[in-house]
């Protein structure tokens, strides 16, 4: 970021006479604005469309398909609709807090993007406390949710807010403990530094470094889902119990802000997991020499990896039932926290025993993961084929020749 501004100043793109800090401030605001309006808002919107389409497929229905090709513009329609809706403030609500809460949530969510890498040199600020900053600013989301839950003056909202706070505070611990092995391996907290410690090949990724990081990866993903209030951990807004949880009383734009933060947060989860464990934007050096195609390629590979995990989160939401509050706490404190501690200590011991790492273990672990992926893909293909087959088989009509023809 700073290098970019310095080169622009040197090339005379910045009007003379301006102090340097004005140039920095302007560059920060412009780049931040680009990230917010060109990346975050569309990504959150498009994810709602993806979610609804995938949910439709999983539930054997169609999903939104009227607005634009395959319903792609549905997210824009929903956004415009939400903006045009009346902004209702309940008469018994605590008005200042009620109005402030969505902005606090949105601030916490957007602030996370300061350290989220996009590929190559594209990052708003590569803080040297990057990952720590990211886990810290998400605390603002909790404060915002508690604020919304309280200010709505509604029992469902309050229960949702308090559930959310309890959940996020609890799941921060396994998440933090699963980030630590990576920080130890890379020896830095900076997001770009962590990516730089990995290579493009799967066996150089942190997730396959040793058996402990392999499990730490899954614990981080599960904890991140819980912190993002996603099913199976969406107790704060459990529709069947709490109407819509902390967002029950909100309408129009404020409601939209809550949900934009929720869906946008899915991408943050994917980006964090990709950065820490899956090699980030690393590509083979030989692929592109020219800087521009290289950055495009790096962006594409990072986005593909991150969005894959968004897709997995959507799958999980529509295939798993919601767990109970006590089960959620038991899972966190009795299973995830001890396992995360074992991973943390195990990685430390592993680093002492094998300072250079064990290539055989890395290759073995990545082959195992590839095997799991292949087995899963075969299973999916098998089910899809069977579903297509039974559609013909089930429409059994003795007078029709369709069945005989399909066999023949």
């Amino acid at each position, binding site marked *: 970021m700073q290098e970019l501004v310095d080169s622009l100043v040197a090339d005379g793109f910045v009007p003379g006479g301006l102090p340097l800090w004005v140039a920095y401030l302007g560059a920060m605001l412009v780049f931040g604005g680009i990230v917010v309006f060109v990346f975050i808002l569309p990504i959150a919107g498009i994810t709602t469309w993806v979610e609804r389409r995938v949910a439709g497929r999983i539930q054997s229905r169609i999903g939104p398909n009227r607005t634009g090709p395959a319903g792609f513009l549905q997210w824009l329609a929903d956004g415009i609709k939400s903006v045009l809706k009346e902004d209702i403030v309940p008469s018994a609500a605590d008005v200042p*807090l009620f109005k402030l809460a969505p902005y606090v949530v949105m601030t916490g969510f957007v602030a996370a993007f300061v350290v989220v890498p996009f590929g190559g040199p594209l990052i708003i600020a590569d803080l040297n406390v990057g990952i*720590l900053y990211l886990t810290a600013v998400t605390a603002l989301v909790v404060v915002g949710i508690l604020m919304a839950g*309280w200010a709505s003056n509604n029992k469902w909202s*309050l229960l949702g807010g308090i559930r959310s*706070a309890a959940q996020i505070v609890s799941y921060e611990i396994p998440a933090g403990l699963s980030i630590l092995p990576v920080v130890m391996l890379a020896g830095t907290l900076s997001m770009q530094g962590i990516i730089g410690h990995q290579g493009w090949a799967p066996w150089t990724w942190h997730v396959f470094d040793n058996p402990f990081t392999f499990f730490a990866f899954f614990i981080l993903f599960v904890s991140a889902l819980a912190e993002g209030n996603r099913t199976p951990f969406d107790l704060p807004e459990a529709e069947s119990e709490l109407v819509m949880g902390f967002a029950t009383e909100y309408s129009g734009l404020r409601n939209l802000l809550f949900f934009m933060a929720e869906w946008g947060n899915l991408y943050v989860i994917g980006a964090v997991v990709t950065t820490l464990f899956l090699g980030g934007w690393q590509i083979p050096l030989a692929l592109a020499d020219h800087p521009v195609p290289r950055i495009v390629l790096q962006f594409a590979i990072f986005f593909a990896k991150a969005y894959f995990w968004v897709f997995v989160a959507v799958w999980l939401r529509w295939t798993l039932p919601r767990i109970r509050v006590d089960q959620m706490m038991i899972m966190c404190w009795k299973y995830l926290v001890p396992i995360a501690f074992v991973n943390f200590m195990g990685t430390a011991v592993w680093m002492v025993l094998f300072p250079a790492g064990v290539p055989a273990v890395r290759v073995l672990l990545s082959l195992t993961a590839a095997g799991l992926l292949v087995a899963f893909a075969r299973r999916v293909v098998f089910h899809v084929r069977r579903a297509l087959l039974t559609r013909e088989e089930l429409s059994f009509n003795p007078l029709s020749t369709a069945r005989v023809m399909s066999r023949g």
Partner: protein
Amino acid sequence: MPVTTAVFYLLAAVTLGSACGVAFGTNILYSAFALMGTFLGVAAIFVLLGADFLGVIQLFVYVGGILVLTLFAVMLTHRIDVQVSNRAVGRLPGLVVVGVVATWMIRVARAARWTEGQPGPPAATTAGIGDAFLGTYVLPFEVASVVLLAALIGAIVVSRKEVKG
């Protein structure tokens, strides 16, 4: 330099303003939320001083941990409107305590030797803090850990139900 100074005064105003909101507010929940401004302001001042690690830890521990737990506790109480924050002590003893603390703090601030820092991008402090904790200050660090562990065990002992057998 004037920019940094202006930013400092802005942050100080936010911090002190929120702190006044905490101290003088009659709604205990508003006080708790105003505490967020104080914590954020202090974290920002740490960052301005070049202590980025400390600033983020401030955010992490105080906003993420203590503020959330405070809000949690406040929301579970049923008396939100509190006119007198501490009934046990009146206004006069309170003033005396505040006066003593204030004079003492001003004396410390005047006695301290303030050094002008070098302007420029802050250097990474994380590794230095880690080395200091596990090198020079390893004993205080470990003692603090044991104290925290004792507090944790104490909390468990206080909160767990007695098993009758």
